[in-house]
């Protein structure tokens, strides 16, 4: 299915969000779509095609909910948008968020103020921040325009950088703007077979790589996330082909980091995946309960996958920075031959890459 930009069939606006410029701009973009003002979120039609415009009443900024039991990259997240219409079979949001609809928080000025206070309040600390935790960073950018505002905001920050993580090709808003090298644009990649079966509403591999190349040409550094890697009979040949394909589009010198992560999910997601995506076979892999209580492939499988990926990638360019997302130190060591040992060391290494 070709990638289709999200258009809501109904917009709800909470009363405290009506007067924000972003609300007005979104309503004018979707001038043909019906909208309703509501006092609270309880009266909203719980549908995937609904868009809710509201105010973020909590903090925008949060630490990534990594676990102490595995090594985490120390990333921080901004909750600007909740939910995503792409509907990947394995998406954690299916079980994590209560609502099926997409929520856009329109008080973006409050976000910038919150971040300014944060960055100025601790100048010795380095902030590596992303927006791709509870949503795809760019899938709603055709009507929010947030990416451009964020990139420009971060462009002159000395102790902070932004990572936009996406599977989409929605980069036009950020191509010809001042980014100051403070934004990394990242793509989540998978094999064409897995894209077709598990990410079927997202752009193809080549479409993603072409978008990445256009960002590279605009001077952005690129991040790549092979996550979630899926273990299936022909995985080896097919992931290797993806790596070959990457370097037909991208210069290794422009790739700031590459992460490897194998399929994992909280146990309750298994039933949800089976019910919502009956054709998906990912839950029939050899997944066992990990020490963080999430389902993961048996460790030997992960080691095998990461070890091979690491070798193939390093062969392309030994200087590539490759890391594991949420893995045990033992897995790092057996896969890569080295380990940062703990989350802080990994965070520092990644912070240095960007500074």
């Amino acid at each position, binding site marked *: 299915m070709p990638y289709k930009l999200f258009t809501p069939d109904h917009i709800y606006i909470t009363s405290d969000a009506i007067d924000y410029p972003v609300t007005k701009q979104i309503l004018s973009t979707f001038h043909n779509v019906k909208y309703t003002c509501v006092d609270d979120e309880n009266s909203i039609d719980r549908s995937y095609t609904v868009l809710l415009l509201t105010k973020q009443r909590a903090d925008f900024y949060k630490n990534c909910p990594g676990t102490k039991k595995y090594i985490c990259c120390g990333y921080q997240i901004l909750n600007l948008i909740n939910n995503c219409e792409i509907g990947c079979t394995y998406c954690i949001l299916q079980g994590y968020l209560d609502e099926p609809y997409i929520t856009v928080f329109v008080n973006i000025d409050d976000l910038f103020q919150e971040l300014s206070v944060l960055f100025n309040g601790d100048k010795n600390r380095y902030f590596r921040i992303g927006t791709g935790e509870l949503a795809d960073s760019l899938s709603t950018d055709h009507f929010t325009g947030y990416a451009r505002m964020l990139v420009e905001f971060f462009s002159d920050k000395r102790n902070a950088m932004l990572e936009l993580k996406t599977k989409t090709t929605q980069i036009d808003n950020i191509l010809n703007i001042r980014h100051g090298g403070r934004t990394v644009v990242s793509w989540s990649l998978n094999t064409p077979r897995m894209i077709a079966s598990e990410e079927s509403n997202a752009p193809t591999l080549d479409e993603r790589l072409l978008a990445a190349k256009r960002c590279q040409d605009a001077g952005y550094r690129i991040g790549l996330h092979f996550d979630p890697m899926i273990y299936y009979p022909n995985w080896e040949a097919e992931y290797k082909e993806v790596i070959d394909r990457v370097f037909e589009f991208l210069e290794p010198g422009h790739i700031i980091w590459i992460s490897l992560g194998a399929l994992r999910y909280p146990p309750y997601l298994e039933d949800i995946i089976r019910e919502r995506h009956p054709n998906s076979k990912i839950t*029939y892999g050899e997944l*066992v309960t990990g*020490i963080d209580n999430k389902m993961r492939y048996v*460790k*030997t*499988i992960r*080691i095998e996958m990461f070890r091979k990926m690491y070798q193939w990638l390093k062969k392309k360019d030994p200087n590539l920075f490759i890391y594991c997302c949420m893995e*045990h130190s*033992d897995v790092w060591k057996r896969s890569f031959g080295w380990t940062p040992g703990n989350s802080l060391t990994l965070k520092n290494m990644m912070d240095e890459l960007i500074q």
Partner: protein
Amino acid sequence: MINFYEDDIKLTDIDLKDETYLFSFEPRITEIIHSIQEIGLINPPILVKKPDGFNYIIISGLKRVLALMHLKTQWVRARIIDQQRFVPALSLFRLGILENLGTRQFNVVEKSIIIRKLHDQFGLKDQEIIEGYFDLLNLGNNQRVLQTYLQINKLEDNIKIAIHDDLISPEMGYHLTKLDPDDRNSFFQFILQLKLGKNRQKEFIKLLDDISKRDQIKMARIIEDDSIRSILSREDLGVGLKLPMIRQILRRKRYPILTNLEERFSTIRKKLRLPPKIQIRPPENFEGDTYHIELNFKNQQEFAEQVRVLNSIADSQTLNELDELADAL
């Protein structure tokens, strides 16, 4: 308010084929026969006259009527609903439920028959059933329970009896409704042959379901595979021995890599020749990187002996093999 009058009714005037108001699922009537023989009929059945004006339909008391027939009785004193003032069918059905509740608990299958009738025959909406009847039936107020009980009624009678006899749970019954009849029957026989308890049933159905969906083969084919059939048919083995053997076959199919690790670990453990009082355990699911040793001793002498054994294996190549376990697929 429903009005009654009492009358003596000929048993042959009761239309047993009309099950509009019946939900009883109690295949055995021996106890009630004994009771009637000993003390007679205490509670008269409740009947309603059919529109033809001649025959009667049972609202409540099917087992009593069957027992009387069995005892070759010809007449029964019954409470008849006076239909001079029309009583809606749903009220009669509810009356039957309430009357029965006064003397007994409903079993799972009866609850499912009631819910299915409310849904299909009386056209009640899900929420009306939950709100109007779930408290009476002592069921948790939610949609999932409703779906479970709606489906159970579709099962074959032998499976319903197994649910009634508490050999399988309502949830397992619901799971069985999702299988095609071949697979369902095959798994049901498998439960009976291996005398699987409820937790084991859950474990086995998950293993079988996963293998079946992953490999796209029918569950019945997995169960009827030679490797399993040959164990099931062995007369020299009791169920207690067959069960772990079959479980391991299925686990090997479902988790080939994990079971291979377990088996290799077990080989290493045997090679270490540790006495029974020293237990070595791998990390759970081979996920972490830490093995555990447990010593069981009664006194210093036993402790010292175990330490000596541990010392003797400290440099052995076999211990190194543990480290290699995680590396090889």
